[in-house]
């Protein structure tokens, strides 16, 4: 055992030079990049994207001085490879023969001559002096030699190849068709890094995933990461960490919902960094509430991101235009981004990546998810199974960035109770507002209640509201009704003394708002309570007359006064 004195210190350790893989998201997963001179395996079943991944890494790192060499043994033929790989954006035909070289050793491989294959690889590496080498597909070599001792031969071949390539300062990737159950194969012990690709098929949906089984010297990101293969090549979507580590100060200020009166019900608005869920049946105005939340932020100079799953952005913006929410102008000005996610084979990590990228680019402080129900439908079936857990990670990751989340969720109108059971999302959120339909004197009306405000006092009364092209207007409290959650409330005039004896409901609300908010102007008071300015003026006059409030240079504030006075 080396003495303590001889142990390398952090400053004396040789730093690992990392290669940028050129695959979006992959560097993050492998801990920053692939260590240079490492000997890596890209394994997985057919169609998982192994060759494309290797080719993308090759093109990203090949230079004229240290070119990339792609060696074909018995995988895809070189002609087919050139035919199909050139379809990807990363494939630059102009670099063929200078930065990127192909070597076809299929004939030597077909003869099963591993020594001959190795000799030719060595000769070509000696000739080109490449910086990166890909061998596709080494597994097939052994199949040609028959099953007896096949893995031993391959292991010996791989060890010799690894030795040579490392000696020549080459970063290498061997591609092999392996299934998950073969992970114990001794060949894998030779590799410095193992990237495992797989395809998950569920009904009509196919989802590709990547796992970094090992990457020596690197703090890799564990778990299965979704990857998407499209015209640009491969993009990896790192799995959202279970516990976001970003330490963000939360709740230090209140964000307006943009709906007069609702902020007062919530004790001053939504605490910044909170996740709020608005749950209600269809037609209760959830999207309008969400638009108002965004519009309020824009009014305050805050950028926002809206992720929608059911409506196209143009339709969504047209609805916002009717509300005069100013969303179209904000999109044009780069202060609002609307992300339309509806591929039906989406992963939560992809959605998060899109949203997180937009949040960072815009410096957004407000994010709307409209709706959770639509989000679930857009996911590939395989991701729906653990939807709640995924949503938990997504919300945690976004609020970890410091943004305030406003999500809508559709629930069944026929349910009794608070209509929150459909998605069982209450544990995901800090704040919950529940909407529902109620029948009052033969008229179907909309009501809402603030169900939960984590760590904050709030109004617990049901209030009627209207949604129109003018927006949302909060109306009277239903405190004189029982059985609201049944949808058919009955009037029960209260005999218990109100919180402030002698005051009307509006006067009580104005007083409560002043108690919570301190000194403010009548205009601010009108905005917070949802009352008309004229009504606020009348109410304030009576509160002052009764000694509940005072006026200081135009601002009003509550005066301390006990209930017994």
């Amino acid at each position, binding site marked *: 055992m080396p003495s303590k004195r001889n142990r390398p210190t952090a400053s004396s350790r040789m730093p690992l030079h990392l290669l940028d893989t050129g695959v979006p998201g992959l560097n993050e997963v492998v801990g920053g990049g692939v260590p240079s001179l490492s000997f890596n395996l890209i394994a997985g079943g057919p169609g998982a994207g192994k060759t494309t991944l290797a080719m993308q890494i090759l093109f990203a790192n090949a230079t004229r001085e240290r070119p990339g060499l792609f060696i074909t043994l018995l995988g895809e*033929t070189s*002609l087919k490879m*050139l*035919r199909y790989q050139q379809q990807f954006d990363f494939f630059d*035909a102009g670099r063929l023969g200078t930065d990127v070289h192909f*070597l*076809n050793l299929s*004939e030597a491989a077909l003869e099963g001559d591993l020594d001959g294959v190795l000799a030719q690889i060595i000769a070509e590496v000696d000739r080109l002096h490449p910086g990166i080498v890909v061998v596709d597909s080494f597994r097939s070599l052994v199949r040609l030699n028959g099953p007896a001792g096949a893995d031993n031969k391959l292991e010996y071949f791989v060890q010799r190849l690894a030795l040579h390539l490392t000696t020549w300062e080459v970063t290498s990737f061997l591609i092999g068709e392996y299934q998950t159950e073969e992970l114990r194969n001794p060949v894998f012990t030779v590799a410095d890094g193992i990237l495992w690709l797989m395809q998950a098929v569920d009904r009509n949906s196919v989802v590709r995933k990547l796992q970094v089984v090992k990457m020596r010297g690197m703090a890799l990101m564990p778990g299965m990461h979704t990857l998407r293969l499209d015209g640009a090549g491969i993009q990896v979507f790192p799995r959202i960490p279970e516990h976001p580590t970003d330490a963000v100060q939360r709740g230090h200020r209140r964000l307006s919902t943009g709906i007069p009166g609702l902020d007062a019900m919530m004790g001053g608005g939504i605490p910044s960094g909170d996740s709020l869920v608005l749950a209600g049946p269809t037609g209760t105005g959830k999207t309008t509430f969400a638009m108002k939340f965004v519009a309020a932020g824009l009014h305050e100079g805050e950028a926002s991101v809206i992720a929608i799953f059911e409506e196209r952005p143009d339709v969504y913006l047209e609805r916002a235009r009717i509300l005069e929410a100013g969303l179209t102008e904000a999109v044009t000005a780069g202060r609002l981004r609307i992300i339309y996610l509806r591929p039906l084979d989406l992963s939560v990590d992809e959605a998060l990546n899109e949203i997180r990228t937009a949040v960072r680019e815009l410096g957004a402080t407000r994010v709307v998810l409209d709706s959770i129900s639509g989000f679930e439908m857009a996911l590939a079936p395989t991701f729906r199974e653990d939807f709640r857990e995924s949503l938990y990670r997504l919300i945690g990751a976004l609020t970890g960035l410091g943004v305030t989340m406003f999500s809508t969720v559709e629930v069944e109108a026929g349910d009794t109770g608070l209509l929150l059971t459909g998605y069982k999302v209450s544990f995901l959120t800090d704040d919950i507002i529940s909407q529902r339909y109620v029948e009052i004197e033969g008229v179907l009306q909309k009501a809402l209640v603030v169900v939960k405000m984590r760590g904050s006092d709030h109004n617990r009364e049901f209030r009627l509201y209207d949604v129109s092209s003018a927006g949302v207007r909060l109306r009277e409290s239903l405190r004189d009704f029982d059985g609201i959650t049944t949808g058919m409330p009955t009037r029960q005039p209260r005999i218990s003394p109100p919180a402030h004896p002698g005051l009307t409901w509006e006067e009580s609300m104005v007083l409560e708002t002043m108690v919570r908010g301190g000194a403010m102007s009548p205009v601010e008071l009108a905005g917070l309570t949802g009352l008309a300015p004229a009504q606020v003026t009348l109410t304030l006059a009576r509160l002052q007359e009764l000694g509940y409030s005072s006026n200081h240079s135009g601002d009003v504030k509550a005066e301390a006064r006990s209930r017994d006075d």
Partner: protein
Amino acid sequence: MTPGPSAALTPRSGAAIEAARRLWARAGGAAATDAAAPLAAALCAQLTTALGRWIGHVGFVALFDQAIGEAREEHPALELVTAADCNTSCFQAVADAHGAARLAAGMVGLIAALIDVLGRIIGEDIAMRLVEQTGIPSSPRVVSAEMEAGSDAQQA
């Protein structure tokens, strides 16, 4: 060998012919008519090595056979040439029977056909790039003038 089904439908591209002329000129074929046969054999050997590295020897032979079949349509002098027998004596037999100029024109036609056949699989740009990398082509203008002289001789 008969040409593939797409050959009759695909006229030889001007770019492929130009690239073929450059390659043949670079091999020295335009100037040295007396040595056309060994030059043709040497060029075939270069192509076999260079393209064989990319697509494998077997793959190259298959492509070259297809290209020879297609080039024969315009250059019957290539009747004696096969991918498996692409040596000096084979090309000398062509030169003796049809003249060095027709061998030269046939070689240009053969290389252009090879680019076309390859180009139908991997695209003409990449095909030309791979074929041209068997050597550094000389100035296209000079080569064109040289080849026009060869073509005149052939017609005469």
